């Protein structure tokens, strides 16, 4: 099923917004109903295309935030101030509206649950979206693969998927959250930007041979990748998805 989903020629199709839920102060989860969706792998994305009344078109890529087991295809969209697409998706879109999209896209940045290698995830901001799909899939198939997530957000209000992440932490996933700009009183997690010590202390050691997926702003993921390589992780074990 998954292979067919990757190999089929992609065409633009219509998705209908089934539900909209709040994920953070600035992010919404758009649960989409798509007829004849053939499934996806956790980590894949879709392209969303918007067309203005005058015919002007623009498109953006969004990671799929829901597991393949979920009946809807969910995207988590964070409002980018002054953005061309995200303010519309976050503030204007309503349940029942239709969107044009193509996908699933990309078989490189995915988690294949078919080996026992531990999994190390690191996300900056809305880069956590594909990992919500990975973690939900990991739970759905009752995988015994050890997983750690290192997640950097600006403030607690910016943390996406808090309830879900708490749930995953409760079943044994190691979730470490770093708040870079603002921490609530009594915050026990990490503070500030990810440095070499935080990476060393809160990621799977290189000798455990983890597979690593990094997703977020370019400066964040490249800093984490450099830190992991300095810790001895081979570059071939690290897959990166950059936002720019």
């Amino acid at each position, binding site marked *: 099923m998954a292979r067919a989903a*990757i*190999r089929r*020629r*992609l065409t633009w199709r219509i998705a209908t917004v089934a539900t909209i839920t709040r994920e953070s102060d600035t992010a919404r989860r758009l649960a989409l109903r798509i007829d004849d969706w053939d499934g996806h792998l956790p980590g894949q*994305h879709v*392209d969303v295309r918007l067309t203005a009344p005058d015919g002007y078109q623009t*498109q953006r*890529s969004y990671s799929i935030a829901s597991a393949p087991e979920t009946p809807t295809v969910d995207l988590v969209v964070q409002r980018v101030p002054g953005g061309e697409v995200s303010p519309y998706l976050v503030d204007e879109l309503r349940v029942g509206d239709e969107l044009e999209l*193509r*996908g699933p*896209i*990309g*078989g*490189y*940045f995915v988690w294949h649950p078919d080996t026992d290698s531990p999994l190390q995830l690191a996300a900056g901001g809305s880069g956590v979206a594909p990992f919500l799909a990975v973690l939900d899939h990991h739970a759905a198939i009752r995988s015994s693969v050890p997983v750690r997530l290192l997640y950097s957000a600006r403030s607690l209000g910016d943390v996406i998927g808090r309830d879900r992440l708490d749930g995953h932490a409760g079943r044994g996933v190691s979730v470490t959250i770093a708040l870079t700009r603002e921490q609530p009183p009594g915050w026990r997690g990490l503070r500030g930007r990810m440095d070499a010590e935080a990476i060393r202390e809160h990621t799977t050691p290189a000798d455990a041979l983890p597979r690593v997926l990094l997703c977020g*702003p*370019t*400066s964040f993921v*490249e800093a984490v990748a450099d830190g992991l390589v300095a810790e001895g992780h081979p570059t*071939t074990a690290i*897959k*990166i*998805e*950059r*936002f*720019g």
Partner: protein
Amino acid sequence: MTTESRRLDGNAAAGRLADVFVFDATVVRTRCGTCGTSAPLGHYHVYADGPGMVVRCPTCEKMIMRLAQTPGHTWLDMGGAATLDIGE
């Protein structure tokens, strides 16, 4: 913006390359024609904020591919790629 902050990767090229190829380009092992680096296209650097999209080698930063699209027309330059190894 600096070059670094504009940088994306092969994942960002996948949708547009799907207009050209029937296979998923991100997993295709691509060899740089300049330095010989061989890696899945998803590992390559992509710059997509110009009128076209440019794919560069993650090792030597030389150009691998350029893609430009206008309504009804796609232009692809693969002069910098030595080989594509496409799995079943």
